[in-house]
């Protein structure tokens, strides 16, 4: 591995393992998605070198993947400023769905609000059974505006999606796998390793074929009649 401390923000690192890039969120206490941090996550993704064949996004903060938006900021900022913040959220999350290689979220801690928006933008979610996942926006009087309403419906169908979206309830990683919100379980403390191993497996396959399948799968409307 050639580890690179990502230069622009102390809370975002990029690790390079052969053809796999790992974007590590490391902004205690909760990896809150304030504007500079989110911009740095986006820049880290844009910085992965040519030849990268899979990207993992993980957290170095114990018991946290990412706990979502910067609520105190949203409580006080003016509306135009917040709308541009939500646009930034859409851009950064969307980049994980548009980059030309598979993206994997390694969820080994609380994954809430913007954290789940980011994870939903990845192609694959690996979770520990006990982590909490949810979109609590409705309980705050707002909505998930970063694309998660559309992404969760397309990922799991209307049935679990509307319950989760309207109630804001949190489910466990094990429940997330049951309903297809995540597709792989790993032991706590082993999630990032499992995600990196999976990324290495993907990286060993024909990159043009992987890219073509990834692009095709992302473009299908999966739950329509």
């Amino acid at each position, binding site marked *: 591995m050639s580890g690179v401390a990502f230069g622009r923000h102390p809370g975002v690192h990029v690790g390079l393992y052969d053809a796999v890039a790992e974007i590590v969120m490391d902004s205690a206490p909760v990896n809150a998605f304030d504007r500079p941090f989110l911009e740095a996550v986006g820049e880290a993704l844009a910085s992965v070198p040519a030849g990268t064949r899979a990207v993992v996004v993980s957290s170095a903060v114990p018991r946290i993947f990412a706990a979502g938006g910067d609520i105190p900021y949203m409580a006080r900022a003016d509306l135009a400023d917040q709308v541009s913040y939500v646009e930034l959220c859409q851009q950064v999350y969307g980049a994980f769905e548009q980059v030309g290689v598979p993206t994997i979220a390694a969820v080994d801690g609380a994954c809430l609000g913007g954290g789940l928006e980011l994870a939903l933008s990845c192609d694959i979610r690996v979770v520990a059974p006990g982590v909490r996942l949810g979109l609590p926006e409705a309980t705050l009087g707002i909505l998930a505006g970063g694309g998660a*309403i559309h992404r969760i419906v397309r990922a799991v169908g209307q049935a679990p999606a509307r319950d989760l979206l309207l109630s804001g309830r949190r489910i466990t990683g094990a429940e997330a796998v049951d309903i297809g919100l995540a597709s792989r379980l790993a032991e706590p403390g082993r999630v990032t390793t499992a995600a990196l191993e999976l990324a290495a497996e993907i990286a060993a396959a024909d990159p043009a074929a992987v890219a073509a399948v990834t692009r095709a799968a992302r473009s299908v409307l999966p739950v329509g009649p």
Partner: protein
Amino acid sequence: MQASTPDPRGVAPRPARDPVAVVELAAGSATDALTELVATLAALPPGTRAVLLRLPSDAAVDRPVDEDSVTAWQQALSAVEDLPLPTVALLADRCTGVAFDLALCCDVRVAPGTVVVRAPTPAAGALPVGGTVARLVRAVGQGVARDLLITGRTVEAPEALAWGLVTRLVPDPAAALELAASLAALSPEALAATKRLALGASQDSFAAGLAAELSLWRTVRAGANAQEGLSAFAEKRDPRFTGPDGR
């Protein structure tokens, strides 16, 4: 708290001007019951912020008999689905016939652990008209939906939960009411916007969907309830969201 009225359905006494409307499907033909249900929902008191729809275990299994009544079913079921309020379906031990059609129109489906679910399909002697085919596919995906629709198999609680035919198992009807009350306490405009976007997400283009999320985010955020919710979170207190009737 206002004076309580006894609840004829035996759930629990509910306060007058209750933000939760408890609605029960009438006995008799499915078409008549649907018509009555839509009339009830159209006349909900203005302070209503969530609906609990109680579905009977012996729901009528008759189907529309001509083109006009098919159209009437489509309109009735869409009216239930499009309500701009959170809707909770409380299933009985058995969910079939028009109860199945209606359950799929609701946002949350709760059922006892003893529940058995069966789609109205040719194998069950019925046609899934009124939008049920599309709703079932959108709810649970093609993988499960085509099996249920083609074979008419009965589904017990564990599978129903895993597939989303029910979204939660509850120990008793009171738990369903509690859930509906918790939804009724949230911001009505945030819920209405989220519901509209979620329903659209099965059919709109992703680009249009993102634009709609941003646009409705802005509209909802501009309201007093969003400010209350965010401020309460920042101040570590419980929010108090206001309904359209100012309560």
